[in-house]
């Protein structure tokens, strides 16, 4: 079976509309980076960069005054900073899942959205890394986390999950960036070869590293891509597992749970898919990419959201069950009382309804294929997943073992400003990416088209097969290829 042929038994369809030519695909995708930005882009960019400005102001004030400008206080010493960190890292996970895991499983539809999702991963991890960076109180001493010989003759404590986190998230960011850049090289070459101005040619040419589509290069390139995908797959599962160990290795009821690593990974993929969908829907309508990002892809993503929502729902139920079954009074007080009926009951309701109830609409095809519905649902899921982290972090702390020290947590305006600011940073980076780099992996999309099949003589556009005597039937060629280079 030819690679480009959809497996109809599995309900697959052509990735790109039938009859599209290779040049049309290049044009559709790359033109976005060559023409003036549509008005929608400028409006979004204006909003996003204003939020980035807000972020800068709030962080500057934080550095000036110290972490006292946040709402964190006894007994809630971890609050929005870590909530936002976990939320952003989780969002990144869908990108790697789409680019690596779906690649290994040969899910061709991923090609429509993988570049997007990878970019999202990188920008989300940048936003995530900001929080541990600024929450340490004295950010100029952040370099203490690195194992380097210093005048104090001290080394980091490698038995601390917080240090594992430094390595996990740092590795995750670096590998995602390498993976993304490797995938971009052939498309940067396409941009270089289409450039009309000297500057574009120089910049894209520099970044394309002299890529010339050589088959000898493609061979190593494809192997590199495969290896990167293969090592990213366990990596992505490890990253959120390690993040969850920041909590799970402690003895706080609500954190001290063995289900945390898989539960965090499922939640990460869930929220990440929701964010991919939000961003994809915006890009699809602003840049009119309906020819590449088909309703089919969106429907598949919605099915995935439903699946991961069920996984997350299972984890929630399991936490409750184990708290009750353990018979431990602190566990029971936390899960059966403080969460649903404590002072933050509303956060718990947000979490439960957005994460377990909202995605249930995707049992129905009419909902899975309705764009306004899925846009709203994807945002609700993002909100719900933010509240999940808030519930885990703040609700486990606000009523600790000693009732006399119980307290409430209120964010300050700076908390809100920094969080909203990172959303601005994320979208600013994303909008710049959409303007300057191909949003869809051009070379990969071409590889899934009928024209990519070398045994299909008539696939080439406006190409007439010359019926010369040396044109052997396809089967003969496929069977009797000369294994050259043997002598």
């Amino acid at each position: 079976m030819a690679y480009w042929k959809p497996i109809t038994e599995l309900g697959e369809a052509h990735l790109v509309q039938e009859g599209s030519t290779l040049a049309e695909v290049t044009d559709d995708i790359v033109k976005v980076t060559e023409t003036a930005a549509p008005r929608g882009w400028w409006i979004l960019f204006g909003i996003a960069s204003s939020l980035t400005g807000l972020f800068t102001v709030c962080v500057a004030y934080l550095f000036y005054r110290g972490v006292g400008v946040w709402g964190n206080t006894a007994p809630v010493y971890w609050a929005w900073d870590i909530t936002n960190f976990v939320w952003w890292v989780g969002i990144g996970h869908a990108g790697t899942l789409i680019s690596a895991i779906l690649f290994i499983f040969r899910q061709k539809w991923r090609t429509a959205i993988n570049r997007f999702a990878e970019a999202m991963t990188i920008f989300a991890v940048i936003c995530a890394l900001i929080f541990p960076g600024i929450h340490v109180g004295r950010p100029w001493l952040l370099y203490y986390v690195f194992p380097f010989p210093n005048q104090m003759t001290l080394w980091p404590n490698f038995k601390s999950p917080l240090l594992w986190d430094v390595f996990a998230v740092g590795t995750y960011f670096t590998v995602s960036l390498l993976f993304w850049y490797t995938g971009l090289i052939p498309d940067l070459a396409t941009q270089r070869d289409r450039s009309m101005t000297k500057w574009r040619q120089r910049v894209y040419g520099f970044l394309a590293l002299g890529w010339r589509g050589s088959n000898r290069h493609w061979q190593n390139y494809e192997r590199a891509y495969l290896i990167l995908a293969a090592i990213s797959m366990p990596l992505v599962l490890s990253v959120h597992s390690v993040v969850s160990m920041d909590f799970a290795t402690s003895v706080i009821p609500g954190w001290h749970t063995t289900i945390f690593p898989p539960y965090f990974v499922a939640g990460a993929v869930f929220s990440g898919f929701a964010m991919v969908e939000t961003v994809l829907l915006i890009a699809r309508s602003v840049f009119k990419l309906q020819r590449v990002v088909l309703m089919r892809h969106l429907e598949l993503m919605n099915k995935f959201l439903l699946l991961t929502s069920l996984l997350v729902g299972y984890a929630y139920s399991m936490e409750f069950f184990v708290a009750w079954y353990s018979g431990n009074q602190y566990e029971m007080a936390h899960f059966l009382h403080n969460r649903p009926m404590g002072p933050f009951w509303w956060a718990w309701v947000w979490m439960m309804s957005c994460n377990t109830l909202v995605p249930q609409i995707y049992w129905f095809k009419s909902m899975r294929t309705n764009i306004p519905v899925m846009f709203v649902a994807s945002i609700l899921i993002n909100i719900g997943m933010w509240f999940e982290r808030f519930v885990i972090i703040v609700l486990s702390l606000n009523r600790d073992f000693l009732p006399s020290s119980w307290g409430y947590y209120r964010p300050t305006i700076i908390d809100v400003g920094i969080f909203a600011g990172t959303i601005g940073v994320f979208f600013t980076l994303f909008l710049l990416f959409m303007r300057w780099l191909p949003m869809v992996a051009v070379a990969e999309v071409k590889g899934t088209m009928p024209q990519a099949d070398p045994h299909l003589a008539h696939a080439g556009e406006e190409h007439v097969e010359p019926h010369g005597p040396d044109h052997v039937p396809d089967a003969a060629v496929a069977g009797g290829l000369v294994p050259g280079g043997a002598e």
Partner: protein
Amino acid sequence: MDAKVAKSGAAVPAVILAEFGSAHDVLHAAEKVQAAGYRHWDTHTPFPVHGMDRVMGLRDSRLGWIVLAFALTGLTGAFVMMHWMNGVDYVTVVGDKPPGAPQTLPSMVPILFELTILLSAFGAVLGMFGLNKLPRHHHPVFASDRFRSATDDKFFISIEAEDPKFDVVRTRELLEGFHAAHVEVIEEEPA
């Protein structure tokens, strides 16, 4: 003739470039170029063409071995680093586990894993660049204006002058015989 007009008379052919309209045509032509005994030649396609490695007689990529070497370096490096820093140079006892004892190993697993992955990723990317001899911003094929579509929708075969069987007239005739859409000789001034 589409050959670039040389500024001085000293220009010599560097590469012959044939353009094809489809993956099917370039694969068939590549098969015959290989059969004709050429070794310093290549195909240039907008995406990897299935079966081309076999037709060109390429051996399997060696990249996996490079990555393995990097991965083992990451793994052993991470172990040595953690053991030396927390078990030897500045002993940090956590959970009453004797420094350097096997019981300290489980807490090392996350970082052993992460550094193995990190080094493997660098091995894959840098190894790929090394094997492909990239970055290389200057190459004779870039002299052709038509070659710009090699990253869009056209397929090329290039045969380099350093190939022992290279002959401007005969090689050109060979490529023209494959119903190439266009054949051109790219010349280069000798260094």
